[in-house]
């Protein structure tokens, strides 16, 4: 069973600027972001909205959602059962490569 401490290693992944792990009730479980509490509800709601896209797209489950920013510090959202993971990436990191790394990391925790 993964612990909050395990998730703290997300911050060490190359390309990850900030991360925030939030329970579906908005409780912040693990983070390295000073504004995590302010962002938590947006992460949870985004994750829930993306989860519900399966109702509109013949049951397709999303892998991750990426909100693009002009700065390149895009925000990635992953659904992990009752938890949602928000990642703010470094502008220079490749989003596809980073998402693959994150998915690999999460699978390693399972």
């Amino acid at each position, binding site marked *: 069973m993964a612990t909050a401490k395990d998730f703290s290693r997300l911050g060490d992944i190359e390309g990850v600027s900030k991360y925030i792990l939030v329970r579906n009730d908005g409780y912040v479980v693990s983070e390295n972001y000073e504004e995590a509490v302010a962002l938590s509800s947006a992460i949870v709601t985004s994750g829930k*909205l993306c989860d519900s896209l399966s*109702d*509109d*797209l013949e049951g397709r489950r999303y892998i991750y*959602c990426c*909100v*693009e920013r*002009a700065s390149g510090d895009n925000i990635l959202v992953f659904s992990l059962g009752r938890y949602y993971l928000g990642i703010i990436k470094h502008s*220079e990191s490749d*989003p596809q490569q980073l998402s693959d790394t994150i998915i690999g990391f999460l699978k390693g925790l399972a």
Partner: protein
Amino acid sequence: MEYDSKLADIIASLPEVTGGFLYAPDRGIYSNQTGGVVQDESLQQISLKLTKIVSMMSVHFHDTGGIRVCFRDMILFGTMIQEGHWLFLLHQPSLSPGMIKMTVQMALNIHTEESPEADFSAEPQEATENLQTNDNIMAILLSEESELRLPLENIHSQLAHYIGPVAELVFNDSVEIWASNNTPSLENLPELISMIQGEIDDEDDRNEFLNSLQSKKEE
């Protein structure tokens, strides 16, 4: 609607794009070009959800732009094209975000060029607009995320080797014409090379230029 044809152009120009749609809060789905695969009601829900996500994130981050939702077999991309109006594309995962963004931006730039107001503009203003558009195209094509950046930089540098300082001018003009006649892509690169090699007078130099590009490609 004016954006209908732009959306159709984008879909037609990129085989990996399987469909798209246009949405505005006050009009709902006003162009469904998914080939009937997804119904308007579902697209309406998708649009509401994705625009809400961007809207929420924009409260926290003030530079939000588009959104991409990745599924195993497709990606749903959305970007605001004007106040409140959104363009969404469904495409295969093999298509890079950079290429999608570039194609959409170019389609919107072309729209600016073709706007009715431009027909009545004074000539110097048109020239300025065109220059700005060309600068935009070059900036997009040579951006970090563009898959064309390295091949184009190589063509540029090889051309400079054979025709010297005028290479930049020739290169920029050729790319501009190429981009207006084709969707810029790796597949269409031979057409650009064909145009540019005609600018090298000496036949031996021309052949060397083509050989150098070929050997670089094989690397």
